[in-house]
């Protein structure tokens, strides 16, 4: 029998033996030794190679090599599926998955982002101011001169070198208008400070979002429209809002916006002081004195508003102690 025929025969033999064999590791191992072992059938073929002519050697050699590769490949495939099968049995799949840390974005951030996104949708851009300010930006430019009773409304932390910690984000308005020509349409979120005792209801700092829109012929009706839009977007289409006169030195007229919260539970009574209405934000038409302090034309009009973030967050999530927001308690943060 020629060597070529032998090669073919061994291939066929292997195929039939493999096909009829139980796929059992001992049988496979025996087959492996029988065909690919040091004294196996394929090795024997190689040793017979020396008996053929030099012309044929490379061709036949290659054929034997192909045979070896084919057989090896068959064994590899068997082993692979064998391994996978093995991995898939004898395992308790009820064991928990790997540990990954849970994380969360702070509720203050979430509220700032939710509110910012509403205003971004209607063309407001975001501008961030600094926390440390001059008296001018925090007070004088906002029409709160020294000895103005409105300064009583805000307990200010004063710093060395005649600086202070801003008491409201309204200070950013002035910076922005100083640096930019009208029209101006910005929101400015950030941290503000009040020198107050820390308690369930107040903290020495909190966060606000300031809004400012200045252009020609902006009206109080425009302000009401934007505030109502915001309320519907944030609190739901059915929300009822009301505006009532208030006083801020930097807006005239000034307003506070309430939403109807309802009087269903005892806590509703407490937080709305029995009226059902809840104060959400302060707003108004920019006072001409403010335009004067940034050298804007007196013919311009505009509106401004300020929203307290912590207040909204506490309402939205039913948080009753403001200090929880700054403690970093994982059991608290995990819930958001």
């Amino acid at each position, binding site marked *: 029998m020629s060597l070529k025929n032998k090669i073919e025969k061994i291939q066929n033999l292997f195929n039939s033996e493999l096909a009829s064999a139980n796929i059992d590791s001992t049988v496979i191992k025996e087959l492996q030794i029988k065909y690919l072992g040091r004294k196996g059938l394929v090795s024997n073929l190689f040793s017979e190679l020396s008996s053929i002519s030099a012309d044929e050697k490379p061709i036949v050699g290659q054929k034997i090599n192909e045979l070896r590769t084919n057989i090896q490949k068959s064994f590899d495939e068997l082993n692979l599926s064998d391994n996978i099968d093995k991995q898939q049995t004898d395992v308790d799949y009820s064991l928990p998955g790997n540990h990954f840390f849970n994380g969360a974005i702070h509720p203050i951030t979430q509220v700032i982002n939710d509110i910012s996104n509403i205003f971004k949708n209607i063309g407001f851009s*975001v501008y961030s101011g600094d926390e440390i300010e001059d008296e001018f930006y925090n007070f004088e430019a906002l029409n709160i001169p020294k000895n103005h009773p409105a300064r009583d409304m805000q307990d200010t932390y004063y710093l060395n070198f005649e600086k202070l910690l801003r008491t409201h984000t309204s200070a950013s308005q002035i910076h922005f208008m100083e640096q930019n020509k009208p029209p101006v349409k910005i929101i400015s979120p950030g941290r503000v400070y009040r020198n107050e005792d820390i308690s369930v209801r107040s903290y020495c700092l909190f966060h606000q979002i300031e809004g400012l829109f200045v252009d020609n012929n902006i009206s109080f009706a425009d302000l*009401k429209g934007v505030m109502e839009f915001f309320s519907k977007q944030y609190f739901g289409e059915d929300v009822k809002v009301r505006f009532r006169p208030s006083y801020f030195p930097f807006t005239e007229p000034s307003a506070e916006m309430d939403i109807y919260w309802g009087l269903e539970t005892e806590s509703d009574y407490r937080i709305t002081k029995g009226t059902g209405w809840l104060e959400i934000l302060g707003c108004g038409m920019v006072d001409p004195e403010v335009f004067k302090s940034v050298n804007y034309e007196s013919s311009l009009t505009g509106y401004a508003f300020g929203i307290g973030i912590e207040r909204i967050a506490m309402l939205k999530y039913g948080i009753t102690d403001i200090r929880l927001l700054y403690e970093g308690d994982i059991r608290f943060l995990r819930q958001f």
Partner: protein
Amino acid sequence: MKISRKWLENYITSNKSDEVLEHEFTQLGLECSIIKTNSIDSNVVVGRVISCEKHPNADRLKVCKVDINEASCLDIVCGAPNVTHDILVPVAKVGTKINDFEIKETKIRNIQSKGMLCSEKELGLSENHNGIMILNSKLKIGESINDALDLQNDTIFDFDMTPNRGDCFSHLGVARELAIIEDKKIKDDSFDFKKSNFKSKDMIDVEVADFELCSRYACRVIKNIKVAESPKWLKDKMKLLGQKSINNIVDLANYVMFDTGQPLHAFDYSKLEGNKIEVRLAKKSEKILCLNKEVNKLDGDDIVIADKNGPVAIAGVIGGYDSQVNSDTNHILIESAVFNEINIRKTSKKYDYVKEASKRFERGVDYSNVINVMDKFTMLIVELAGGEVSSDYVDVNNDTYSKKQIKFNFENCNIFLGLSLKIQEYKEIFSKLNIHVSTEQKYLFCEIPSYRNDLNRSVDLYEEVARVYGYDNIPISKTFTNSYKAIFDNSKDINNQIRLILSSRGFFEHYSNSLYSENVLKDFNNNETPEIINESSLDMKFMRNSLMPGMLKAVSFNEKRGQDSFKLFEIGRVHSLIKSYNKEEETLGMVWFGKSVDHWISKFEADIFYSKGEILSFLNQLKLKNLNFEIKKSDFSKVNLNITSNKKTIGYIRILDSNLHKKYKIKNSLIFSEISIDKLHKHIDLDIGFKQISQYPIVNRDISILVSNEIESSKIIKSIFSCSDILLKNAKIFDVYFGKELDKNTKSLSISLKFQSDKKTLVDKEVDKRVNKILKNLKSNFNAIQR
């Protein structure tokens, strides 16, 4: 500020309920809430004692039959000594609540008792508890005590008045607002009293140093008054307003102030030396003994009323002790004046006397009403304390005062508010506000009432129009206008991107306080930081110069509560002071905390390599280029790595030292890092140029080398790259080994090298050449021996 509804009725009445008024005041800009003073339970009624007999089982008790005009009489056991038959008494029926105590039907020594007869003290009417209260025999039986006695069945509105509305700090002022709501006019007040024929001008001379300080000073002498305890009605008013009752004169001064908004003062005339008073600024080192018995050293901002011997009162703030009106007083000088708002404010703040009078002066009083109010005060004094009133009064004033007029363009107002009111409607609104109007084409010339110190510009009138018309009646615009000029690029804000990446990597976001004590400022860097000069506590005296104090506090807080493994981050401003210039830097802080997680397969330990890897991965995601960690000696931590991008430091990563573990009471291991977001920004490279992916196979070669322990592996990797060409794509340490068979000071590093060309399949020879070069280079640079 408290306003009594009954008191308001002196000026104007309203049929509206308290709740409706509360709402309407609020909608008009006077935010208020309701306090009811009807404190006696309506179950307490007038009853007649029909019979009164001794209790069979107790000597001191009596059994009474009481008629309260119901189907049957009540049997009530009573222990009061003064109870007898045929008197009218207050009867608390079963179910009445008296001082949180509910009256129940009960048996007292075996006799049924269905209620209680009450003393004045039990009803809260006085301290009298000597017996039951005996009522006027003409009262109607069965009527509630509140109605029968006309007890202060009143509603108090508690106003949260905005600082611009000084005119509303009185019943008169609130009545004027109620008149707007009711669309009525308030009743005129007239004051009538008998005048004697002596003259105040003969008895007192007034000199005002500067009308800037005091634009009007009026006073009058009243002789031979009788200072006495105030009558009940006046005491009741003082109680209502939270004022201590002093005597009839002082109480009346307060009463008229709460009534009209004009603060008043009364001096004991005979204690004023020299028949002359001066209104002037205090001189340096002047002193005054005040009504509260404190001696105050005055200075140049304080306005004083002074006689020949010096200050007798700090104007508008507090009276002098020596010139006060007390039971020895016979003649008084009463004062009604207008002082400078700013001086009063400074003075009252300085001495911390924010009292009712200074509160009103600070917000501005009604210049034109000074004499009227003094007349009202005079009339009431005569009624309660008698006395002879001078035929004249002294009135020193700045007679240049004139009524304010504002030119008002109603078309502009319509545009400004988004309204379309006609001129007639404007006139009606102004009429409600007592603003007299004359018309000239589209302009209204508005004459402002003297009490409205807050109305000076057109825009102030726009607000008046808005609030009288009703904020809720102003239309709501349903379109948004937008100029593209107002929109600017916000895409550089990466804070939210950082938050998303870190939270999905398992970090919790934390917000911590920005204010700390000095004692934590030197733990993380040496930066000076702004200092608060009016701090409420030394614990919050400085601005944070690092996020770490707050974050470590949170870690400690959580560890104490059994949370032993977590990751935190915070984004916030970190402050520093550079040559008195404040610098704020947006900063990211990260903390990896914990020893282990209880898990059958996953392990975690706050380990600096874990943190390094996490930081690298997340900074790569932000598209920072050329990132590196450099081991740098630090004064603040034994282990400190600087994080660099393009060779510039943007932050650090550290292992918490043992001293800080102790300071913050943290037990488990902790790695922390701070990265300046402001600096990080500069290294973000969003110019993504796509590079072709090589079609040719990668050739892997592993090498193992022995080097001295001290050699930083990062330097070895760097050196491998620096001696290689672009075919070397990666060099990674995959094993570090120290072992017995190695020299004590030697470590074994196994490094996998990947070679690849973009142009062809590499052959062994080409790769071997490069690997040999690397090994040779490592040998010469680090004395590395190939294993």
